[in-house]
C-alpha cells in the first residue's frame, strides 16, 4: 500500500478546504440577502459617532458646540433626535438609560446622560481622551482615556442592556511607558485596550473586573499610522494601518495570541477607518466609498457602496452604516 506523501496529503486537504470555503461563501451569500432600511437624517456635518442601545442604535453628529443625538431602532428607523451641549472631545456610548456622553472637563472624566445631563460617573486625574476612545456593542460599552497621574490607559465601562449592573469602574492597562496612541474596542463581553509605545502596538483584554492579560503585541513602526481598530471575542483584532514610507494601506488581522493571521490591501485612502466586531468571528469595516464585512478567513462581503465615508456599528446580527446624511442597516454576519 502506498503511503501518501506529505505533499499529496496537503493537496487533498487544500482541495477539501477550498471546496468547503466555496460552499460556505455560497451559503453565506444566500442567507445574507439583507433587509435594509434607509432613513435620511437632516443635513449636517456627516462625521457620525455611532453606539449601540438596548433597543437599537444611537448616532451623534457635531454641530459646533452642540451634538445632535439620533436614537434609532434596530432596523435603522428614526425614533428621536435632540441637541446637547458637549466638549470638543465628547464621545457617545449607549447604556440601558439611553445615550451617554463621555467627556473630559477640567481634568475630570465625566459620563453624563445625553438627554438629561445627569452625571453618571466622574473620575479625577484624566489627561486626555484616547485616540479611539469609545467602544460599544449590545453587551458592554467602554470609554478610554489617559490618566495624568500614572500615564495608564483607563476605561470607564458598563453594561449596555442590563440596568442592574450600571456601576462604572476603572480598568488600567499595565504599562507605564509613554503612549503615542491609545484606544478601546469591544470584543463580545470583553473590552480590549490598545496602545502604542515605540514600535509596538499592545493589546490587553479586560473583562468586567480586570484587565487579565497576558498583554500581547505586534510590531508596528512608529512612522506607520493606525487608522482604526475593531475586535471580536474569537477572531482577535482587525486593525487598519498606513505605511509611513510607501503610504500603502492595509487591514491586518491580529489573533488573540498576538500573531498576524493575514494582511489585506485597502485601496480607499482615509485618515480614519471605522472598524467594529460583528458577531464573534467577523468585522464590519467602513472605508471611503464602501462598507464591507470581513471574516477571520479574510472573506469579504459588500454591505454598502456609495460616495461618502461611512461609519459602522454592529449589534445582534445587524450592521448600522451611517453615510452622508443617511443611516442604513444590513444583516451581517
Amino acid at each position, binding site marked *: 500500500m502506498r503511503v501518501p506523501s506529505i505533499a499529496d496529503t496537503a493537496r487533498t486537504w487544500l482541495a477539501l478546504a477550498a471546496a468547503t470555503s466555496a460552499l460556505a461563501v455560497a451559503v453565506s451569500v444566500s442567507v445574507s440577502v439583507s433587509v435594509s432600511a434607509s432613513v435620511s437624517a437632516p443635513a449636517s456635518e456627516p462625521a457620525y459617532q455611532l453606539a449601540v442601545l438596548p433597543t437599537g442604535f444611537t448616532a451623534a453628529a457635531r454641530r459646533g458646540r452642540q451634538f445632535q443625538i439620533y436614537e434609532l431602532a434596530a432596523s435603522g428607523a428614526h425614533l428621536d433626535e435632540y441637541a446637547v451641549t458637549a466638549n470638543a472631545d465628547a464621545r457617545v456610548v449607549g447604556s440601558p438609560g439611553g445615550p451617554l456622553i463621555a467627556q473630559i472637563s477640567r481634568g475630570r472624566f465625566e459620563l453624563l446622560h445625553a438627554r438629561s445631563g445627569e452625571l453618571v460617573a466622574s473620575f479625577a486625574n484624566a489627561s486626555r481622551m484616547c485616540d479611539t476612545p469609545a467602544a460599544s456593542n449590545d453587551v458592554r460599552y467602554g470609554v478610554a482615556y489617559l490618566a495624568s497621574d500614572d500615564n495608564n490607559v483607563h476605561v470607564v465601562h458598563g453594561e449596555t442592556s442590563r440596568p442592574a449592573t450600571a456601576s462604572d469602574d476603572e480598568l488600567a492597562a499595565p*504599562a*507605564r*511607558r509613554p503612549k503615542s496612541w491609545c484606544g478601546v474596542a469591544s470584543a463580545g463581553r470583553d473590552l480590549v485596550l490598545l496602545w502604542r*509605545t*515605540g514600535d*509596538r502596538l499592545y493589546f490587553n*483584554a479586560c473583562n468586567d473586573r480586570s484587565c487579565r492579560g*497576558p498583554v*500581547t*503585541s505586534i510590531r508596528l513602526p512608529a512612522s506607520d499610522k493606525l487608522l482604526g481598530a475593531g475586535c471580536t471575542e*474569537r477572531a*482577535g483584532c482587525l486593525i487598519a494601518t498606513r505605511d509611513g514610507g510607501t503610504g500603502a494601506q492595509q487591514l491586518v488581522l491580529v*489573533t*488573540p*495570541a*498576538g*500573531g*498576524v*493571521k493575514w494582511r489585506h490591501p485597502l485601496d480607499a485612502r482615509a485618515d480614519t477607518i471605522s472598524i467594529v466586531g460583528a458577531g464573534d468571528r467577523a468585522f464590519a469595516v467602513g472605508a471611503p466609498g464602501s462598507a464591507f464585512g470581513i471574516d477571520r478567513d479574510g472573506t469579504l462581503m459588500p454591505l454598502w457602496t456609495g460616495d461618502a465615508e461611512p461609519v459602522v456599528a454592529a449589534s445582534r446580527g445587524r450592521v448600522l452604516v451611517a453615510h452622508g446624511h443617511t443611516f442604513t442597516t444590513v444583516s451581517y454576519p
Partner: protein
Amino acid sequence: MTYQIADEPFPPTRLADLAVRPGAPLLASMICGHWLSWPWFAINAYAVGSPTRRRELAWCIAGFAGSALLGVLVFALIRWNVIESRVSLEVALLGVSTWKLAASYRVATLQERSFNASAQAGRGTRNPRAVLAVGFLVRATIYHLVDHPLWPIIIMGGAL
C-alpha cells in the same frame, strides 16, 4: 591523612555574611521574579560555600537560557499561527512558568543541603526580608525596563 565529606561547605568567603536560607530566593522567584531569584541563588551559592555551586550556577544559567528558548518557541508558534487563541497562549506561558519554577526549585534543593551543613558548622545567616521587600516594590520597574515581549517571559515570576 585528609578526608572530604561530600556536602562539606567550602571555607567561608568574603560573601559569607550574605548567606540566606535558599527558601528566600525561591520565594523571590514567586513574588518578585526570576531577575532577582537566579542571581541571588548564584551569590548565595558562594556565600554558603556550597560544594555544588557549579551545578547550582549551571541551573541558574539554564533557567535563564531555557526561559529565553521557550519564549522564542512560543513567539514562533504565535508567528506561525499554531497558537492563535488566548487560552492556548496562556497554556504555553504556563509551560514557561513551570520550567522557571522547576529550575528555581532544583537550585533551592541543591543549595539547601549545603546550607544545612553550613548551619551545622555554626555559620550565621542574613534575614532576607529587606531584599524581598525591595524586590517586590521594584518588580514593576524591572518589568518595564526593556520594551521587548520576550523580557517579561524570561524575568518575571508568578506574581506578574
